């Protein structure tokens, strides 16, 4: 299977880093999110349970208050003082006033025994009214009977519980109360049906207010109470609701008996926790989900922070890991590049025994082998060069010997004994110096000595057909030169320049120093060489069986083999004027010889 394009285009290092990073990123996000969700749900659940408990507690307290009021009203109705006055059993105006006073006194004693009762009033349709107050003036009867507490009690059996309201039964007294009213006929069953009377017990609103106010539901949460008709009994922001600055979803609340519901009011989300009292009031705990999980943001922050921290750690580790993994590869690559450039003195450090370590070991072995092979080649080349040189030198000797010996034989035949002696003497010196010590480099002075002997021999052979002179600077005499390089050049000058010249020729050997080089020129005034021939002179293969021309090529070849391609021979020639051969070698003094 081919790797995906995405992976093909990147280095292993990046691939590992990116893959790890993505893997870690996903894992961290999933883990952080899950842990956040779980803990948030746990906190939410706890808060909900707590809120429900609180709301139930409020409900129980309120039920307790109301049932207390109910029992008080029941108790009051069994009072003989009240019954006496209501039934009008006493005859005469005076008796009635006295009964009313007794009844009022009884009611007062009940009210005074409890701080949460605001007032107790009895009113009946036929005009009997009595309250716990001695001095306060009740409003006129028609107004009282028209009021809600009275009407509600009359229209229903049992006890009527009002919403919170301002009680205005007394002149100039406006108190906030919750009214518990009870129809008299329910208890005084023996009374005639058309005689209606209602007993009103007013509960101080501050009781409920204080109860609800102290409930803390998170930072902003609160409790409100709504009665079955949908009017608010208690709400900390009642005025804002009436001013329509705030909203509560009362329809939703009224539809729930108990439990929780999330609603949207205005632009905010609220959580209603509802519980219903036995007489129908709904106690509603309002919490803000954001607020409920008070540390939601903190939890988010913590989850995100630890997610990010572990992410960064993991990233760093993944980058380091991928770096550590690919480092030996990179190292190997660098070394391979070096090998590519021809450096073989390298060795990859092997740090591990894994696949890359094996690779490196193999690479090292390979480089070692290459190095071995290379040095073997160099050695062989060197040997080949030396043997070639030896061969070249060795092949000069017989070539010259034949010619000289021919001359000697010819002179001996013609009886020129003196010349035979001279020539033989020169030849013997020449051979001595040639075969001599066998070294390759010799001082220029010795080479010149050698050429003098040679010229002596040749001059005799060609019967003084030419003259010669040697002009070499003193200071280069001690410089080294390859052995037997001048002789083939002089030989060439004689055979190709002087020999065919009808006049007596002249050979000049001039040596001088040019900067770091030494030039030795062999100048003849012979027939010259045509350019075509001259071009061939240096190109001729070292085929020694051919004429003397090959000797020049040999010289050039030897110089270049020994000193390099910068050195060697050059020719200048003009037909019928002569030829100049210039030999160029580096100026090497004996002690500097390689």
């Amino acid at each position, binding site marked *: 299977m081919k790797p995906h394009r995405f992976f093909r285009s990147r280095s292993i290092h990046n691939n590992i880093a*990116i893959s790890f990073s993505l893997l870690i990123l996903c894992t961290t996000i999933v883990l952080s999110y899950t842990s956040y969700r779980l803990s948030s749900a746990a906190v939410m659940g706890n808060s909900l349970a707590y809120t429900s408990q609180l709301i139930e507690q409020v409900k129980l307290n309120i039920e307790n208050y109301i049932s207390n009021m109910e029992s008080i009203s029941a108790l009051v109705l069994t009072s003989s003082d009240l019954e006496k006055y209501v039934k009008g059993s006493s005859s005469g105006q005076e008796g009635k006033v006295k009964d009313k006073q007794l009844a009022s006194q009884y009611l007062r004693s009940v009210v005074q025994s409890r701080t949460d009762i605001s007032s107790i009033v009895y009113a009946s349709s036929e005009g009997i009214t009595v309250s716990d107050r001695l001095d306060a003036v009740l409003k006129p009867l028609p107004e009282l009977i028209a009021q809600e507490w009275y009407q509600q009690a009359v229209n229903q059996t049992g006890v009527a519980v009002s919403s919170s*309201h301002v009680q205005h039964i007394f002149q100039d007294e406006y108190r906030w109360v919750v009214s518990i009213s009870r129809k008299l006929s329910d208890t005084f069953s023996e009374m005639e049906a058309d005689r209606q009377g209602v007993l009103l017990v007013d509960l101080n609103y501050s009781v409920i207010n204080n109860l609800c106010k102290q409930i803390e539901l998170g930072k902003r949460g609160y409790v409100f109470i709504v009665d079955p008709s949908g009017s608010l009994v208690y709400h900390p922001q009642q005025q804002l609701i*009436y*001013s329509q*600055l705030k909203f509560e979803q009362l329809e939703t609340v009224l539809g729930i008996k108990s439990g929780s519901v999330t609603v949207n009011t205005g632009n905010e989300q609220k959580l209603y926790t509802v519980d219903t009292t036995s007489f129908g009031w709904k106690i509603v705990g309002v919490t803000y989900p954001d607020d409920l999980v008070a540390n939601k*943001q903190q939890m988010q922050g913590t989850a995100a922070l630890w997610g990010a921290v572990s992410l960064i750690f993991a990233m760093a580790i993944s980058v380091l890991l991928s770096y550590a993994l690919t480092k030996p590869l990179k190292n190997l690559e660098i070394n391979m590049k070096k090998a590519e450039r021809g450096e073989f003195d390298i060795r990859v450090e092997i740090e591990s025994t894994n696949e890359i370590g094996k690779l490196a070991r193999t690479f090292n072995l390979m480089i070692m082998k290459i190095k071995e092979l290379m040095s073997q080649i160099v050695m062989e080349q060197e040997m080949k060069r030396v043997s070639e040189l030896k061969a070249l030198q060795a092949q000069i000797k017989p070539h010259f010997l034949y010619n000289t010996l021919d001359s000697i034989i010819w002179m001996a035949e013609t009886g020129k004994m003196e010349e035979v002696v001279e020539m033989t003497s020169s030849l013997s010196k020449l051979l001595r110096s040639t075969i001599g010590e066998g070294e390759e480099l010799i001082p220029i002075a010795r080479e010149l000595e050698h050429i003098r002997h040679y010229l002596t021999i040749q001059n005799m052979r060609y019967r003084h057909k030419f003259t010669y002179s040697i002009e070499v600077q003193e200071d280069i005499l001690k410089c080294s030169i390859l052995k037997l390089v001048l002789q083939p050049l002089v030989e060439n000058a004689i055979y190709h320049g002087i020999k065919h010249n009808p006049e007596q020729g002249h050979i000049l050997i001039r040596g001088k120093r040019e900067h770091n080089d030494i030039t030795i020129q062999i100048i003849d005034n012979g027939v010259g060489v045509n350019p075509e021939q001259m071009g061939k002179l240096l190109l001729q293969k070292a085929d020694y069986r051919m004429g003397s021309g090959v000797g020049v090529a040999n010289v050039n070849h030897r110089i270049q083999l020994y000193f390099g391609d910068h050195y060697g021979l050059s020719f200048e020639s003009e037909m019928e004027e002569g030829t100049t051969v210039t030999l160029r070698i580096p100026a090497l003094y004996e002690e500097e010889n390689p």
Partner: protein
Amino acid sequence: MSSLWSKIGLSALLLFFIIALGWVGYRMFTNELDPKVRTIIYVPKTIDTSIEFWEVMKQGVATAAKEFGADVHTIGTDTELDVDKQIQLLEQAIEEKPDAIILAATDYYRLVPVAEQIKAAGITLITVDSGLNGGVSESFIATDNYKAGRKAAQELIENIHSDDQVAIMNFVPGTATAIEREKGVRDALSQNGVDHVHDTLYSNGSSQKAYQLTVELLKNQPQLKGIIGLNEPSTLGAGLAIMDLGLKSKVKLVGFDNSSSEVHLLEKEIMLGTVIQKPFTMGYLAVKTALEVVSGHKVDSVMDTGSEFITKENMYTSENEKLMFPFIE
């Protein structure tokens, strides 16, 4: 090309982490900052607890403070007339370097310099109920008195004939509230063809003065059919005068504000009705607005908290009960 792409990929990853870290850091940082409680100094005209209006406004302030988690201190003078003391208190308040000051100015002009100082100190200034000349504050939260005046007049107009004579019992000449209310009243009257409006009477905020002026007026102008009292003492004085002269059904009275004496007049049907303000809403909105300004939101420079016309009939409805008979703990 490939190395370019991987460079881009790595840079993107790196950038992502930096952003992620930055975000987390920011969240932590703001989490640290968020619980920082804003401090607000609330300076009503008076801290006299017997004056219902300011007590109710204080409830509104406290409700908002709890809801928005602000720390509100109340400082103030014992009477509404102690302008110098209020200035001095404000100077002290500046020293405390609160985030905001909510001020009910005792004087329309004299508190302007100290208000400028508050602004110069970088403190958000919100005026409530009574504003300042030149609109120095970020927002002025109060009853729209012009509208309230119109509302009162409108109710009177419906109960008289357009050619009936009407009198206005104002309180202090030159007070912004008084001027606005009277303007509203006069505009509504003239637009409805009620042209027989007597010269404005000034009670100077005293119910006795209002009583005397009304008695004189009713004696001299037997044709008078309606009186509009522009604040509580003015209305009360006029109402008592009507009651004492036995002109209950002949002269219609509409007024302003709510006191138990006024409730009494309403129940006795001497008054048609009264326009009441919403101090709770004022207090609540003042804190809310102050916090909005502090957190850099834009707010309206003037906010109307509204007013209600209360009659004997609607006085005990659950909506109006709370306004008319505020529950003071």
